[in-house]
């Protein structure tokens, strides 16, 4: 049964790719028609009146289908004590080579000849990376999803290891990646006039998803400023709090405070229904239809009035 649903969804996806022109639809998702009264939980800010579903929400086709979701899993294994190595005047390249890669275990054993003579911490580390067949596999601790930076290219361009990796402490990779990571990449790319499109790093972006998403919002913003990194079916606030798409106005309101205040009072945005009873609040994205370029679009005006000379 689930397989059938998946097949149907895939078919839909193909179908819709052919027709979608709105950049919002580049996700390959059929947007539910905006109809009043659909069951969307009423946000507290609308005094209990319902809001129609936002024009884009991950309802039937979750983002997480592609963006493998979930929080980064804490790695229980001990961290590589980089600090101690560097303290012995070693260079990164001594272990990682010119084309930096995770060294093989034998590189370690060039110095650490006899494990039994090593301190307890080193013994524990190797115990942890021991494979089933008795060998040692030193692997990347947290996968950066599909992004594998071209280290040779970076080195050639004169980017020091520390520019990205920082001054390696004992456990630099045990930390969660922060949003600032990608922002730092992009900032640096832009500063050095290096290519900075999504595909530069995200090699696996499939056509045409996200291809049409052009960010014409405030300067220096990036996807993960608003989209929750760990769970793409949600948005996020600056403090990392998850926000459902139905409450996207909370995300918008972080910068557009006066507008949020006005919207709550009915001074900004549109409401329909009863002036003295049940009315429907529209969300920011109902009018600013493309949150990636939220500027209100130009419109074709309705025809002008007849000139008095033409009334006859």
């Amino acid at each position, binding site marked *: 049964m689930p397989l059938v649903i998946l097949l149907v969804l895939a078919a839909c996806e193909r179908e819709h790719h052919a027709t979608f022109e709105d950049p919002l639809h580049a996700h390959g998702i059929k947007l539910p028609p905006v109809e009043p009264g659909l069951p969307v939980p009423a946000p507290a800010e609308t005094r209990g009146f319902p809001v129609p579903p936002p024009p884009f929400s991950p309802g039937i086709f979750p983002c997480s289908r592609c963006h493998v979701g979930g929080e980064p899993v804490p790695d229980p294994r001990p961290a590589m004590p980089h600090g101690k190595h560097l303290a012995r005047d070693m260079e990164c390249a001594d272990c990682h080579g010119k084309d930096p890669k995770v060294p093989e275990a034998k590189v370690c054993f060039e110095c650490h000849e006899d494990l039994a003579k090593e301190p307890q911490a080193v013994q524990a580390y190797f115990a942890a990376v021991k494979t089933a067949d008795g060998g040692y596999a030193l692997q990347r601790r947290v996968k950066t999803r599909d992004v594998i930076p071209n280290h040779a290219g970076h080195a050639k361009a004169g980017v020091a290891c520390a520019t990205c990796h920082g001054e390696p402490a004992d456990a630099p990779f045990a930390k969660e990646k922060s949003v600032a990571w990608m922002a730092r990449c992009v900032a640096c790319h832009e500063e050095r006039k290096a290519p900075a499109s999504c595909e530069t790093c995200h090699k696996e972006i499939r056509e045409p998803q996200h291809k049409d998403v052009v960010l014409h919002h405030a300067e220096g913003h990036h996807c993960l400023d608003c989209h929750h990194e760990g769970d793409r079916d949600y948005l996020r606030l600056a403090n990392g709090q998850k926000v459902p798409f139905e409450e996207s106005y909370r995300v918008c309101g972080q910068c557009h405070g006066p507008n949020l205040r006005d919207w709550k009072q009915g001074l900004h945005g549109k409401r329909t229904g009863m002036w003295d009873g049940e009315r429907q609040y529209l969300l920011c994205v109902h009018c600013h239809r493309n949150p990636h370029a939220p500027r209100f679009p130009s419109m074709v005006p309705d025809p002008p009035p007849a000139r*008095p*000379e033409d*009334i006859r």
Partner: protein
Amino acid sequence: MRFDRAFLRFTAGSAKLVARGSSYYYGWIGLLAIFIVLGAVAYARQVDEGLIVTALRDPVSWGFYIGNFTFLVGVAAAAVVLVIPAYIYHWKPIKELVILGELLAVAVLAMCMLFVLVDVGRPDRLTHILPLLGSLNVPSSLLAWDVLVLNIYFLLNLGVVTYLLVSLFRGRSPNPYIFMPLVMFSIPMAVTIHSVTAFVYNGLPGRPFWNASLLAPKFLASAFCSGPAIMLILLQILRKTANLDIKMEAIWKIAELMAYAMFLNLFFLVAEVFKEVYSDTHHLQHMRYLFFGLEGKTALVGWAWTSVAASVAAFFLFLIPATRKNLVTLNVGCVLIFIGVYIEKSIGLVVPGFTPSVLGEIYEYDPTMNEFLVGLGIFGVGALLFTLMSRVAINVANGTFRLTQEAPRADVDVPA
């Protein structure tokens, strides 16, 4: 014989009197009849299709009809110019003209009412605006007041002339205790009708061209030119055609009064132009449209300058005694005044008030043939009324139309 029976005889006699005349008379009546028929046909078309057959539209919602109404109210009011000196100062030469002035007022007021009638969108609901029958919105609506005072003024003039004529018809001198209070009352009423008409425009703060306190004084000043100008021409026509004994002294006196009135009219115009031009607020737009045109739209410019030129020229013709007392220049002056004031008080008053509109739109109002024909018909009605009434009046004044005790009916001696 009692007054009421004499009145019946007077009416019957009058009907006979106006039915007979020279071929010129019949020709004139026939011409007016053609005008009236043309007007009636045009009005029938307007009733059938609506006011869309006019050039009036939302931006300029009053035009030719109301402009004529305004001008004619002034003419009607000007009868007072003849009444004041005649009755208050007992000027012999003018007294005989007063009856004609009041007849003119009656005929012109009838035209005024017709011009209002043809202008309204629902003539079938005219009872709504009648005193007592309708729901006249007094005291707040100036148009309601205008309807009231015009009706009163109309009845007043009609009453006074009827009384005077019937008295003379009976061979008696009119009882001053009856008609003098009415005449005295008609003087302020004349000022009132024209002032109230001015106030209809004046009380609209959204229309700065009209919302100037000089409007009512200017209305009166121009009325005291145009009304007598018409009277002077009519009197000369009647002198020729009806043997009416009119002394030149009276005509010169009237012309002199007109010169003063025209001076005031021009002075008020200068005062208004100065105020608007020097202040240079957006109120100037209307005057600019009238005299220079706006955005290349210059429909009124020619009319406006014609009006000013005619008024100034007439002022000098009437100011200088030599030209005032010369019949040719006097008549030229009368025609010039008529042209000047007619333009100024009709199209030159109404249309610039609406142009540009309150939202800044410039619609060039250009009356349609249908409007002209309806107007022609109304002027035909007015002229016919005046012709018939003055025919009776002249014969009464000449003593040729008198009640004779012996004969069972009034003897009518029709002059050639």
